[in-house]
């Protein structure tokens, strides 16, 4: 029977990564010297499972490496060794290394071995040169002892009376023996007591076998391996006690027939073949793994979510049946009323179903948060800072796609908080603060958004320094008067990353502008607020899901565009008296205390036939990154939820457009990307209230 092991790879990888995560978080919770047994057991079990699985599924590099971890953990678990901080550090490194190895294997690549080997040596050094025999290959590749010529063995097998109670059955052992070669069996019954004294559960029979086989003694021993201690077993090679051996050496017929028989049902040839496959024919092994496409990601969904979906589909089917029944009737006034009711029901069901389908992709944000304890620990060690990490709202759910893209910007922000925000313990003490700084990650829902705050109680942003740096980099002018918030905003400007700020931790050539860009790519925003000496808070706002948005449909000439409702501040008719020209064809509307630049969609997208007179049009005021612009449209149409289709995937990237949707009448409508539109229109806001119409070449406006 051959079973393709690759079908289990997906589950194996998934559970191994989960195991590594569990090990990591348990290790981070450990305090050497005060470890509790259950934590150590959990860590041990995870390592043990990874080893068992990787060995079984043929990932020997992983199982070899995990073996040393497991041995160390086993010794700690059994109290043979005291857990020290060095072990924790090493184990954490090993977890990283294993993660990398498994990731490579999942992508069907050869894992990088060098780090694993180095770490392995360090583990072995700790284990004090304890030999690491019993590597997995040996377990499956026991060399097959194959005698050239058949040999006859006399085997005496006398089970102890209780043998049956161990669940072993002599009959099956005899059957196995017979598969090794030619078997002569003598059952000896002289110890069977008189019926009255007989205990039905005991074994009184014993056996003498003569086995002629080409397989060695070890094959026989293997059969009795489990009952060695529950029986008297003697195996001797007999030369002439039995009349057969002589025949064997003379007659070629019997020896030939014996191996042929022996080969068929016995397990041994198979394993040796498997080992060969693994060692020499790497190509077929890789092919077998092709099923595991690394790009297919899976998602685990709680059964309650699936149940509620099934319920809703049930409702939908009932509504559909009701509607089709009405459709078959003649149209009367009462049937129209019923139809309307049915349609309302349908709308309700559809909305419920949609919401619940979206929920399937929602995962608790703890998936992202969980990597931070480790990160904070490592960085604070490097920086010699003391940090307490608080995680709040870990159960807040977020779309999986958003989650994946959120991780990098968050890591960057947390690194920044630790590196730039928090002071050293000495500085903190000098300021009368607790030497242990706090970084808090907080996630919560607000409206249709998820908000994630990254807060630290460090020194806050240095506005003076930011200001002078911005002047130096030409982002603002010497004479510009900026509020504190506006100065803080400057850190998100491209080109702001400065030599002053670069350190090993946060200066990786990635600036805050990239963080903002990544978050904006998710239709989100990021803001900072900061108070000197008290700390900084970065606030990320993201739409709950990428696939659906509440949109305002607007008309421009004969086109319908969609503006995300979330960005809209207000829509108004323009009072011409409040419009002024500020040059280069740009007009602004004075709205209360603000000047709102007017963007003409028909200009930007080159439509003809739009209403150009300001008094006949409407202005949709939208806000993006604290910056307001007015979008000039002919008319406001309905508001509705729209399903976003990627333009990039179906066509190509279009500046100023974040996606498309299909409207109820089947036409395609484009969704406006506000920040892209502002860029496209030639407006920029470099941190001051001044409007720049000219864009520098390096701002990257596509032709």
């Amino acid at each position: 029977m051959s079973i393709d092991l690759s079908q289990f790879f997906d589950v194996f990888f998934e559970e191994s990564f989960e195991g590594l995560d569990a090990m990591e978080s348990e290790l981070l919770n450990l305090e050497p010297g005060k470890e509790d047994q259950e934590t150590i057991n959990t860590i041990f079990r995870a390592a043990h499972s990874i080893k068992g699985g990787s060995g079984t599924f043929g990932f020997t590099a992983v199982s070899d490496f995990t073996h040393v971890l497991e041995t160390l953990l086993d010794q700690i678990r059994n109290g043979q060794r005291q857990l020290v901080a060095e072990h924790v550090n090493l184990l954490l490194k090993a977890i990283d290394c294993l993660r990398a190895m498994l990731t490579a294997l999942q992508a069907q690549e050869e894992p990088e071995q060098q780090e694993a080997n180095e770490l392995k040596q360090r583990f072995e050094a700790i284990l004090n040169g304890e030999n690491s025999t019993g590597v997995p290959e040996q377990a499956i590749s026991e060399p097959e002892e194959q005698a050239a010529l058949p040999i006859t063995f006399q085997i005496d097998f006398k089970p102890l009376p209780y043998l049956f109670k161990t669940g072993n059955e002599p009959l099956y052992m005899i059957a196995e023996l017979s598969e090794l070669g030619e078997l002569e069996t003598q059952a000896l019954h002289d110890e069977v007591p008189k019926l009255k004294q007989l205990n039905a559960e005991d074994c009184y029979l014993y056996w003498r076998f003569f086995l002629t086989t080409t397989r060695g003694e070890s094959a026989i021993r293997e059969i009795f391996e489990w009952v060695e201690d529950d029986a008297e077993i003697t195996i001797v090679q007999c030369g002439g006690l039995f009349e057969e051996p002589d025949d064997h050496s003379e007659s070629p017929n019997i020896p030939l027939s014996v191996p042929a028989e022996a080969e068929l049902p016995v397990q041994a040839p198979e394993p040796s073949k498997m080992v060969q496959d693994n060692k020499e024919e790497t190509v077929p092994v890789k092919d077998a793994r092709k099923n595991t496409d690394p790009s297919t990601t899976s998602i685990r969904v709680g059964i309650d979510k699936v149940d509620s979906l099934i319920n809703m589909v049930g409702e939908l089917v009932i509504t559909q049946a009701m509607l089709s029944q009405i459709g078959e009737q003649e149209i009367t006034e009462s049937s129209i009323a019923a139809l309307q009711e049915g349609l309302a029901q349908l709308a309700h069901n559809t909305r419920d179903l949609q919401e619940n389908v979206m929920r399937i992709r929602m995962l608790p944000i703890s998936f992202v948060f969980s990597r931070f304890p480790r990160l904070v620990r490592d960085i604070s060690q490097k920086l010699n800072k003391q940090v307490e990490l608080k995680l709040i709202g870990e159960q807040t759910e977020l779309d999986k796609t958003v989650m994946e893209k959120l991780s990098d910007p968050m890591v960057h922000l947390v690194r920044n908080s630790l590196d730039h925000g928090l002071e050293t313990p000495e500085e903190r003490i000098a300021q009368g603060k607790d030497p242990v700084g706090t970084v808090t990650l907080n996630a919560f829902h607000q409206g249709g958004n998820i908000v994630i705050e990254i807060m630290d109680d460090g020194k806050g942003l240095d506005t003076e320094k930011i200001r002078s740096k911005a002047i130096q980099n030409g982002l603002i002018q010497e004479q510009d008067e900026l509020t504190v918030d506006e100065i803080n905003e400057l850190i998100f400007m491209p080109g702001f990353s400065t030599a002053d700020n670069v350190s090993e931790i946060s200066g990786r050539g990635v600036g805050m502008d990239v963080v903002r860009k990544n978050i904006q790519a998710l239709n989100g925003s990021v803001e900072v607020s900061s108070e000197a000496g008290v700390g900084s808070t970065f606030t990320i706002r993201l739409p709950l899901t990428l696939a659906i948005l509440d949109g305002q449909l607007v008309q421009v000439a004969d086109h319908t565009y969609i503006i995300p409702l979330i960005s809209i501040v207000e829509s108004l008719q323009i009072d011409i008296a409040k419009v002024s020209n500020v040059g280069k064809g740009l007009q602004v509307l004075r709205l209360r205390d603000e000047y709102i630049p007017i963007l003409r969609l028909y200009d930007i997208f080159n439509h003809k036939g739009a209403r150009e007179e300001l008094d006949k049009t409407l202005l949709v005021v939208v806000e993006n990154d604290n910056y307001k612009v007015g979008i000039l449209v002919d008319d406001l149409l309905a508001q509705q939820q729209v399903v976003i289709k990627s333009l990039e995937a179906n066509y190509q990237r279009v500046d100023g457009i974040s996606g498309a949707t299909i409207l109820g009448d089947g036409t395609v409508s484009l969704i406006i990307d506000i920040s892209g539109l502002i860029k496209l229109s030639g407006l920029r806001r470099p941190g001051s209230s001044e409007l720049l119409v000219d864009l520098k070449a390096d701002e990257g406006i596509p032709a």
Partner: protein
Amino acid sequence: MKKILAVDDSASMRQMVGFTLKKAGFDVVEAKDGSEALNLAKQQGFDAVISDVNMPVMDGITLIRELRSLPDYKFTPLLMLTTESGLDKKSEGKAAGATGWIVKPFNPEQLLAVLKKVIR
């Protein structure tokens, strides 16, 4: 059809053992730890039990000890899945009443070959 209870906290192992045994014509029930297995074993009869040793809640050796004390499992083959590094576990398992052991890692063919020692 012979019915086997497969116990392992690792989903991939459980799937592999379950799939292999089913393909070989056994009826298989899976459990993710000793406690779940013990409950199942009390509710329905099994012709053999194959259990991992290291599991949360209830480990494999405790499971075997508990099972062996039940009249219905007096003579039932109870096999444990151990690793090559858990040699001392074998004797501990035997003392608890295990019939034998299967050494991890193993492939499906080895599993079936070993199983032949106790169930046919």
